[in-house]
């Protein structure tokens, strides 16, 4: 029984660390969501070449040596044919201004803009095509 208090102490430490971690994570998540929401509706002033300016656009931010970026690129190539949108790939580090406009925090990230070049959604990290399709439909 001599070791019990030390073990109990460590159990309490684990519980406290877990509670702090969850609280901090939820706080950061809320902050990121608010920061992203505050950018929605902003108009894209940066020059971006679009195949069809009358369609919504997905701006795909990638980086060098980014494993998840190849998965996101593959996912973008699998967008269904009826999800009509321009897809523009941008190096987040070479186009830091554009990445800053969208509030990109990590790569890959994707930003969806409507035909009037207003920001509709920003996704931090990999997202499946189904999410992007639903965001494109916001512009309809």
């Amino acid at each position, binding site marked *: 029984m001599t070791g019990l208090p030390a073990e109990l102490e460590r159990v309490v430490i684990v519980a406290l660390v877990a509670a702090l971690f969850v609280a901090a994570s939820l706080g950061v998540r809320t902050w990121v969501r608010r920061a992203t929401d505050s950018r929605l509706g902003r108009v894209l002033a940066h020059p971006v070449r679009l195949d069809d300016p009358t369609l919504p656009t997905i701006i795909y931010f990638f980086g060098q040596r980014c494993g998840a970026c190849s998965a*996101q690129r593959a996912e973008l190539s699998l967008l269904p044919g009826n999800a009509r949108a321009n897809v523009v790939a941008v190096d*987040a580090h070479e186009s830091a201004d554009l990445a800053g406009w969208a509030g990109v925090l*990590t790569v890959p990230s994707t930003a969806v803009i409507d035909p009037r070049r207003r920001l509709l959604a920003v996704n931090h990290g990999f997202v499946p095509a189904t999410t992007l399709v639903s965001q494109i439909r916001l512009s309809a």
Partner: protein
Amino acid sequence: MAGAAPEQFDLTARRFHQWGVILLTAIAFVLDGTNGGALMIAIGLIMVVGRFRDEADLIRSFYQNVLRPRGVLRADWAVEDRATRRVARVLGGAAQIAGGALLLVGGYGAIAWGLIGLITAMIALDALFSFCALCFVVHQFQRQAASA
């Protein structure tokens, strides 16, 4: 834009594995010393060897062979990035083995648990929010380096 259907993965299997690793790490922390070190090395081996051989991942095997067939947990199939997680899994497993070895040697408890705690936090972020901490850190580092 049409193409082959993207590969889907069972998110429940991934999350069960991650929560299992977190729980075992907490048990190792409570045990501490050589017992805790040996458990951390075992967890690290599950992470690293399980990356290359699915049957070596005992936590995922328990889910696939016991919990899912009995309906305790249900599969949640979805497209997600697996390449980065595989890299992170090997890196994290290696750090856990190194941390376990430091605990076995003795006298490096703070360094060992600091290292293991960092990896556990990254696993928890992915399990809770599907957030790739490794991708975030690399991007922020490259951004700072580019602006310097």
